[in-house]
């Protein structure tokens, strides 16, 4: 019999139905052009904000990671760290000169120990040359600073051990300082004033570029000893110490040794938290990246909420659309559509709406990110990683499925006769 065969043979494969549903979903979205855009507005805004924020944050992290690459992987940085409980008591942790001396003398397998002393008062940052003056960051650093950090003088020379010991009034300048003070092209040998002291310029540092929109070349290096002398109250200054571990396999061992040494120097009892941090260059990058991920996660949360709102918007309009198209659904059922056919059709329409919203959102978000990065002076260019695009698409589709399923189920359950009778 003719149709017994028809009953037993297979329907078109799933791919076929998917394609057909896609075709009619496209028709329907196009038929309601403006309304479709309004419907997916929630998704558009959600995806747009993710992409805008992610593109800016990723641009930053990209640049920062490049900056930290200068630090070798065998470098350790020791700095003070005030635990939360101590901070509440009004105490401030410090890493002192004595600590550095102790590390230098009593820890084995390290070399190139270099202190970094940051200027601690406002006046300290004022520098001048002839009639020009400006503010710059002033650091006191040891002779190994250049090697450990991978930045070198472009002209002139670095610091010698003697400069440090004799506290000579010599300095190295960052490129911006040279420009700001309108110094000659080769200022080596010129005299220049840091705070109240006259220093002789012995070199100019190579350009480091910008980080987080701030110039990294607006600085003056002094020998560590000299900087301590200028600061006056030499006892209690908080410094950072950088050092290199000779055998990279003994990194952890050296870290432990330094920790134990500092704990006993600082008189910490076994229950107390460390009041310092010993970090590898990777950990420095990591802690920065952690900040980045925290921002990204926070943004993700906000976006999650806006996608939820967007999803509910889509569900709402889809429910309206199912009601509007009740008769159409009845016709399709009379022509032989199964529940699955109707379900698939509405589900695909919801997903497609979300995806269209996603595409618009990605384009707008990228535009905003690029615009913001271009407008903020010195900001690194926006960067949209592939995972953000993939994630946006994934989320959009997910929202479409989750919030499309109820309207689609409602459509598919309609009784054909009731649906055909619907006015």
């Amino acid at each position: 019999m003719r149709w017994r065969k028809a009953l037993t043979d297979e329907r078109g494969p799933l791919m076929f139905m998917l394609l057909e549903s896609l075709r009619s979903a496209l028709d329907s979205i196009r038929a309601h052009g403006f309304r479709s855009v309004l419907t997916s507005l929630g998704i558009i805004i959600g995806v747009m904000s993710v992409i805008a924020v992610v593109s800016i944050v990723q641009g930053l992290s990209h640049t920062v990671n490049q900056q930290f690459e200068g630090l070798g992987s065998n470098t350790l940085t020791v700095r003070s760290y005030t635990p939360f409980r101590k901070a509440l008591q009004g105490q401030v942790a410090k890493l002192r000169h004595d600590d550095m001396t102790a590390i230098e003398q009593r820890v084995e397998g390290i070399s190139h120990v270099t202190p970094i002393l940051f200027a601690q008062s406002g006046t300290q940052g004022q520098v001048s040359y002839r009639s020009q003056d400006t503010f710059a960051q002033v650091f006191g650093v040891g002779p190994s600073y250049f090697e450990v950090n991978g930045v070198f003088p472009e002209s002139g020379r670095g610091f010698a051990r003697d400069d440090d010991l004799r506290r000579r009034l010599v300095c190295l300048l960052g490129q911006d300082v040279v420009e700001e003070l309108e110094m000659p092209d080769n200022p080596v040998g010129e005299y220049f004033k840091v705070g109240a002291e006259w220093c002789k310029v012995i070199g100019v540092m190579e350009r480091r570029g910008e980080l987080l929109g701030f110039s990294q070349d607006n600085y003056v290096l002094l020998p560590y000893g000299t900087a301590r002398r200028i600061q006056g109250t030499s006892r209690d200054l908080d410094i950072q110490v950088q050092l290199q571990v000779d055998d990279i396999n003994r990194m952890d061992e050296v870290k432990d040794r330094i920790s134990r040494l500092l704990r006993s120097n600082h008189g910490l009892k076994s229950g107390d938290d460390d009041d310092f941090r010993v970090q590898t260059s990777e950990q420095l990058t990591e802690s920065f990246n952690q900040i980045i991920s925290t921002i990204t996660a926070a943004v993700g949360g906000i976006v999650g909420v806006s996608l939820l709102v967007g999803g509910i918007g889509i569900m709402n309009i889809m429910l309206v659309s199912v009601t509007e198209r009740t008769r159409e659904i009845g016709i399709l059922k009379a022509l032989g559509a199964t529940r699955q056919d109707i379900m698939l059709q509405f589900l695909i329409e919801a997903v497609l709406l979300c995806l269209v919203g996603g595409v618009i959102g990605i384009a707008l978000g990228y535009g905003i990110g690029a615009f913001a990065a271009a407008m903020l002076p010195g900001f690194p260019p926006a960067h949209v990683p592939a995972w953000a695009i993939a994630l946006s698409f994934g989320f959009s589709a997910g929202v479409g499925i989750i919030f499309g399923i109820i309207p689609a189920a409602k459509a598919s359950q309609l009784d054909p006769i009731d649906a055909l009778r619907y006015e």
Partner: protein
Amino acid sequence: MSADSAESVIRFRGVARRYEMGDQVVNALDGVDLDIRRNEYVAIIGASGSGKSTMMNIIGCLDRPTEGEYQLEGHDVGAMNENELARVRNREIGFVFQSFNLLPRANALKNVMQPLVFRGIKLDDRKQKARQSLERVGLGDRVDHLPNQLSGGQRQRVAIARALVGEPAILLADEPTGNLDSRTTVEIMRLFDALHSAGQTIIMVTHEADIAAHCERVIRLEDGRVAEDHRNNTRRRALAEGADG
């Protein structure tokens, strides 16, 4: 399978359709026995509310009887699940409605192509078949028109083309000329007559005696029962125009 049931395309035995409205029961169909054979041309007539549409919906597998047995080409429809019913509607039944029921946003061609989608037929083949079907009802030059760009008669032709495109065993028409003027009614009836001459089984609901006069057999319903079932000896011979068969 007996020779008798093999010949019957449709076989009703004690078919009833009851609606429960609170404590009141409406017997839309009340125990109908009926056999319709291949290539019959049947009119179902009766007063308003006598159960004509209910019967058509059950024949077309849009609805199920609450009692009794319905066999379609020897298959027990009562035993079929939802998907099997959808498949029967898609392949064995062609529906024509009083209010046309075209998809409003699809042009004539797409409307006619639609049933073939559910059959898994590829786009090119669908187009070709739909075009042929539209030509058969005399609308080969209106394929791109949307329903609201067509006259009532043209819309009903599109609906007929759509019902026929899948070569169904039975063409069901529930007051197909109910929304048409008399001149267009004549055109549509000519089309049905021609389809019948070409071998199509047709069952049609109508109010009007002149329409019923086109059919070979007239069944009159009264309160959900068959009150009269007779051969139409004074059948109006239609001119087989506008359809080639």
